[in-house]
């Protein structure tokens, strides 16, 4: 095989890895962005749903593998795509009515502090339940196996994650552009008073947006867990990364979250080649630069 071919294959694999990473952080940060853009709530605790998704995903997958015959093959995927989202929506509903409701309309800095409190609180709960354990649930990744690219092999599961995320992104785009509820949500971000006077139940839309975001973060966790093992505290790392994504892309924008996560994914993956230890430093420097130069982010200014 020629050098150029190996080079291309190397870069292709790197591209897929970068897309995989982008997928996960897109699913996390898009919800963070929605909740900020549409509910005016800067929710640090958003990543707690990622954490819950990781642990619930691992638990459900481990249960599903023990099912008889064909169910043990399909089960893990049902657990990821349906089981975890359903559980997260249930938990999210409880949280919405109890701990998130008092935060709407509060001053932003107080929201940041209160949701930081929620992060620690839920981190504490997860620590009580799953603390000290190293959960792993590699079944979905094992079931799909690997595909040969040139001389090297590549896990199909990574491609599956990228595919699911692309579908989610398309679905979200269609939802906000084409459906009534989606348009209402956008209108609510623009002018809640007018939406309210048009006889639309704003409160219900609030709940919907929060649950949708929680669901996406939970899905990200469930998709993430087969490729790595989970321990408590892992979701904390994602708080700052997902802030970087939505700040770079633009707070409150779907396109911004897509572009932001692609940019961060690319920087991180290729940064690992040139500056192995400091690839994330580049991400934060870019984030700081964006805030200074164009605080609305790449797409934030266009939509509002």
């Amino acid at each position: 095989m020629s050098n150029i071919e190996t080079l291309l294959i190397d870069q292709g694999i790197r591209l897929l890895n970068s897309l995989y990473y982008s997928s996960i952080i897109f699913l996390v940060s898009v919800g963070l962005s929605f909740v900020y853009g549409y509910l005016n709530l800067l929710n640090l605790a958003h990543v707690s749903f990622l954490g819950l998704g990781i642990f619930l995903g691992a638990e459900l997958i481990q249960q599903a593998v023990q099912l008889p015959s064909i169910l043990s093959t399909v089960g893990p995927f049902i657990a990821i795509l349906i089981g975890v989202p359903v559980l997260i929506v249930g938990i999210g509903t409880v949280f919405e009515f109890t701990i998130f409701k008092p935060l709407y309309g509060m001053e932003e800095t107080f929201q940041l502090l209160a949701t930081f409190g929620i992060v620690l609180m839920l981190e504490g709960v997860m620590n009580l339940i799953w603390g000290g354990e190293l959960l792993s649930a590699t079944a979905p990744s094992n079931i799909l196996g690997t595909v040969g690219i040139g001389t090297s092999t590549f896990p199909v599961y990574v491609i599956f994650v990228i595919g699911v995320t692309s579908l989610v992104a398309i679905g979200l785009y269609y939802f906000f552009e084409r459906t009534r509820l989606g348009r209402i949500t956008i209108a609510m971000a623009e002018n809640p008073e007018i939406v309210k006077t048009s006889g639309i139940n704003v409160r219900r839309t609030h709940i919907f947006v929060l649950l949708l975001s929680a669901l996406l973060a939970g899905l990200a966790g469930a998709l993430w867990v087969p490729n790595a093992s989970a321990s408590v505290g892992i979701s904390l790392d994602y708080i700052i990364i997902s802030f970087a994504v939505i700040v770079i892309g633009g707070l409150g924008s779907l396109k911004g979250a897509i572009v932001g996560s692609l940019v961060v994914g690319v920087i991180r993956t290729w940064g690992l080649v040139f500056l192995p230890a400091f690839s994330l430093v580049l991400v934060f420097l870019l984030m700081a630069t964006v805030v200074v130069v164009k605080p609305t982010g790449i797409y934030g200014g266009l939509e509002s």
Partner: protein
Amino acid sequence: MNGEYSPSEKEASVGDRLKSMLNWRVTGFTVFVMIAASIPYFQERFLTFLAAEILIFGIVALGYNVLLGYTGLLSFGHAAFFGGAGYTIGLLFEYTEIQSFMILIGAAILVVVLMSAIMGFISVRHTGVYYALLMLALAQVLYLVISKNYTLTNGTDGLRIAAPTIFGVDYVEQLGYNLYLEFILYFIVLATFIIVVVSLYRFMSSPFGLTLQTIRENPERAKAIGIPVKRYRWYASILSGVTVGIGGVMYALLIGRVTPGSTLNWTLSGEIAFMAILGGPTTFFGPVIGAGIFLLLRTYILSTAPDAWLLILGSSLYLMVVFFPSGVYGALRSLVSNIHKNGIKDAINPNSKSEPDAERANAQSVRGGDQD
């Protein structure tokens, strides 16, 4: 005191001075310092250590509150100053022969002034969330650079910090570690605490401090009456950063080691903010009370039910922010002043029609009232 005033003026000034000495703030602070100073005499190493930690985080929370309470800026990046100062002396111990306390703290202050001047200069272009996020991003850069740099900073293992010499005397060698901790280091911490409290108090009641409060209350108006708002926010960032840095040096000396996890992690910035909120960000001395409660609570819980610590920390932070944004000290103070004004009955009845106390009004204006 050059004798150019008349006797009556002299009397007045003595009277004023007496009055200010009887001022409950001064009394309270004096009592606090006296209690703090008596702690080493119990000869309980654990107790001295805890008291020193409280004093150190008292300094840190006071410094943090220059921004949060006085200027109205929430920062999620102050761990950078705390750890930055600690790492300055850590690196000096590691790579130079410098051991003098005065040189070490001088170098650390210099580094932190530079850091906070740069970080502040970038961050004060924005307020609110963007300020918080910018500080977070910049602090995170420092965290990553230090924690991933194994060759220079020993990575996540951190650096060892030896005992410094104080005016050329190595007290650990002369007295042993226990006596050094209880009678030298502890009193250095206490003296630093007093210096920081007194000078910050002077700063904050000077026109400078009042200007910051004007900016917090109404930046537009402050700008309109000719205050260079951004520049003052920048000054406040530097003052705040330096104070937190001084706390960082003391902490490094006390613990004897700096690691990225314990001194640079962004959750530390959140904990510092919690101390300020817990005590009362709209009061001067509140953050010290907050630091005290925080550390007593943490020490108690970590020794009895360590697994529950995060849960308790998080839920109490949440409850404080949502229900008592003026903090323990602020709530007590408005209760006391309500008792003065209206008697006990009205003071404990939240629906009393009394004139809202400045603190409460303040806290509400910080929280913002529009629910939809």
